[in-house]
Structure formats: C-alpha cells, structure tokens
C-alpha cells in the first residue's frame, strides 16, 4: 500500500504489529466445510447408535462393520478438528492475556490431537486387535 493512502490501522496498532494474522480465511472455510460433513455424520451416528447399540456386544459388532468403522473414524476426526477450531475461536475471543492465550490454544490443540489418536487406536483395536 502506498503511504499516501489512508489506512484503517492506527499508528499504535501498526507499531505493535497488531491486526490480522492473514490465516483467518483458512479457519473460516475449514469450520464451514467440516460443519457440512458433520451435518451428515453426527445425526447418522446418533440414530444408528440409538437403534442398534444396547450392550457391549452390540457396540463391538456395530464398530466391526466396515462402513460403521470408517464413518465413526470420520466422525471423530472431522468432529475433533471442527471443535478445535471452535474452541480456538472462543479462546481468542475471551482471553486477552498473551501468555494465557497461547497456553490455552496449545492445550486445546494437544487435547484434540490426543483424543484423535485415542479414537484411531480404539477403532483399529476393535477391528484388527485381540
């Protein structure tokens, strides 16, 4: 931008380097795209589990069906990514202190990746373990 152009940024904001990190579009689009997938996956799981799962053996057999195993894996991974993006938004909205914000963002990432790894292990164990 030419210096003669009027900018919406204040002098202080420019010095501090505050403002858009230029990664917002990816966040916005990823939230929407994952939400469309979850619009199919989440109701499917709620209904299928309610109709078919009553006991341990029901749950085990349900998760050993190839289509169910794939769909549950997708639900877990896509859902966890979507909720990581959502919680990230909540954290940057409410937590102003830089260190606390960074720590919470990191915990959010770790927690979601941990859950994703556990979900993958569980589905693999049910289908290929023992």
């Amino acid at each position: 931008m030419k210096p003669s152009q009027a900018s919406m940024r204040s002098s202080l904001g420019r010095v501090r380097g505050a403002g858009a990190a230029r990664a917002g579009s990816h966040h916005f689009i990823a939230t929407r795209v994952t939400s469309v997938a979850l619009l199919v996956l989440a109701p499917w799981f709620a209904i299928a589990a309610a109709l078919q799962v009553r006991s341990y053996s029901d749950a085990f057999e349900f998760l050993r069906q190839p289509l169910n195993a794939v769909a549950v894996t997708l639900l877990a991974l896509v859902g966890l990514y979507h909720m990581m993006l959502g919680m990230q938004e909540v954290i940057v909205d409410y937590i102003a202190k830089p260190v606390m914000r960074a720590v919470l963002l990191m915990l959010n990432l770790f927690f979601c990746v941990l859950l994703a790894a556990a979900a993958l292990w569980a589905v693999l164990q049910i289908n290929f373990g023992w």
Partner: protein
Amino acid sequence: MSAAMTDTARDSRPDVRPPEMRPLSPHLQIWRWHATMAASILHRATGVALYGAAALLVVWLVLVASGPSAYALADAIFDHWFGQLCLYGVVAAIAYHAANGVRHLLWDVGAHLNPKHAEVSAWFAFLIAIAAPTALFAYFFFAERL
C-alpha cells in the same frame, strides 16, 4: 478519503479519545433478551458442551476397544438416570448446534440474511433442539415394545 488524512491527523481530532476513554458497548445485562441473541449465545454454549461430549465419545470407543470388563463402566453410566439425562442433553446440543449451524451456512451464502427470517429461523432451531432428542428417546424407549 483525502491523502492528507493520515493517522496522525486522525488521532489529533477532538472527538477521537484514547482507547481507555472510549465508551464500552452495552453488555448482556443491558440488552433485552431476544430470540436471535439467545440463538447466538446458545450456539456457542452448545459448541463448548459438545467439546465434552466428543471426549465422552472417544472414551466410549476406548471402552469398547478395552473389552467387556472395561465396558461395565459405560453400562453403569447408560443405566443411571443421570447418564440418560446427560445423553439426552448431548443429543439436544447436537440437534441445536446443527440446526443453528445451517442458519449460519445460509447466511454465509447471503440467503435469509434479514431480521425477520433470522428471528423465525431462530425459533425453528429451538424447536428442533426439543423435537429431535425427544423423538429419538421416544423411539428408543417405546418402539421395541410395540
């Protein structure tokens, strides 16, 4: 905007006060509650609640993978009335978050982005949040006895 209006010129105008002097926007206690506001707040609240629900889904998967003796914990939770209540809440939260998410997807493409439709669709989202889990639980408890 004229080229002469630089940041320095802007900041020296009498009506521009330093940040700490600027008026705050009215917060929750000030606003009259209305459907679209409740819908927005509830979307975030259910989103945060589903964060916990997703963790429970993964715990359920791990319990299934760990065998029948570990799954006794899941049975104990599902058999307890409080576990059922939580499960009902989770289904309601999914239904609401999904329904309200559709409102957002429509607005994102510019459809129905006006106060009247926003108001009506907010009530639809509340309705779905009540109807969907009720229907699912009614089916769960009564269908197989028919």
